[in-house]
């Protein structure tokens, strides 16, 4: 087709209505996710020592950092749904920057030592219910975020998929920390943090196929 005719055809179709700002998308998604997690939290009941934990600085900073990771990675996923990533190339690294302080607060304040023997022992316990719960908590908000990101035109689809998954699993992890009364760092590494890393890799692969702009 001749380029001039193509231009006339596209002009007659008109431009599409712009998507909401990524910040607005994040806020809307966040409200839905927090309502969902709130319902799940009230259904499962919070851990028995929650009032003591609220006075624990490490625990509170861990929860705050998890929320920070969840929000920043959701914002990154929504920015990445634009071809130019909303002209914020740094946005996808913010969640990683928060990961180090989170690790310090999560594992420094936990009871018990992190040794290879402890990690191996924790692995043999086969506590699959933790990653299973995190995955279950994450699925509905995960579907929602993937659908919203898909409405855009993602060029960095692996990044977008992993950021979306990191966001939902960070909130799933946070809910598990509010529900489960287990502060053993070996358990947290083997049955919480490592499965989240695996889920992010799966999210990256899903992103490659589900979010690719064709």
């Amino acid at each position, binding site marked *: 087709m001749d380029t001039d005719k193509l231009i006339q055809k*596209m*002009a007659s179709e008109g*431009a*599409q*209505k*712009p998507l909401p700002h990524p910040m607005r998308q994040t806020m809307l998604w966040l409200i839905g996710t927090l309502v969902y997690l709130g319902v799940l939290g009230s259904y499962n009941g919070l851990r028995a020592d929650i009032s003591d934990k609220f006075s624990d600085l490490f625990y509170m900073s861990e929860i705050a950092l998890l929320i920070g990771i969840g929000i920043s990675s959701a914002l990154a996923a929504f920015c990445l749904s634009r*071809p130019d990533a909303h002209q914020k190339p740094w946005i996808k690294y913010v969640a990683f920057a928060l990961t180090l302080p989170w690790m310090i607060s999560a594992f420094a304040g936990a009871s018990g030592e992190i040794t290879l023997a402890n990690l191996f022992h924790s692995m043999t316990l086969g506590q699959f219910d933790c990653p299973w719960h995190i995955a279950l908590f994450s699925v509905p908000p995960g579907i929602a975020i993937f659908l919203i990101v898909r409405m855009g*035109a993602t*060029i960095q689809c692996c990044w977008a998929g992993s950021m979306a998954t990191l966001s939902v699993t960070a909130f799933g992890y946070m809910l598990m920390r509010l529900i489960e009364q287990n502060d053993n760092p070996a358990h947290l590494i083997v049955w919480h943090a490592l499965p989240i890393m695996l889920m992010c890799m799966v999210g990256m692969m899903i992103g490659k196929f589900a979010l690719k702009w064709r």
Partner: protein
Amino acid sequence: MRLAQQGDSKAYARLFQKITPILRAFVGKKLNNPQDAEDVVQEILISIHSASHTYDTDRPFKAWMFTIARYRLTDHLRALYAKIEKGRDVNFEDEAYQLSSSENVTEAYENREYLGKIMSSLPRKQQKIVTMMKIEGYSAKETAQKLNMSESAVKVSAHRAYKALALKAVEEDE
């Protein structure tokens, strides 16, 4: 783009008319073939149109546009290199089509002669398989039944034959 997003189709057309020469210059730096370059420019224009909802009018337009242009150009180059790598730019479907549809008898004869020449470099069995699958139009399954071979053996043999033919064609061209 702001006006276009508000429904002004004239502004939208003006925008496309304004960016087309910029895109032509951008693509022209990477592609020598003017027809290929124009195709890529059109692909970029279509992509800009289909992603028009992702543009935030508070952000610079050119950065957004060039990201899309680079993406589409890379896509095109990747497909081109893959094609060259796979068949060294010789498509036997196209060759067969050219033979059957060519209006110019001399040209058709030359094409057939050329194809016959490079085909003769293949072992007899592979020649038969390529002839049946690409000229006579048999499927891999039908070819396998006719030649009393397994379907997978036919596919493997055909794949090797196409590769050998492509290499031969490149040698001939050089």
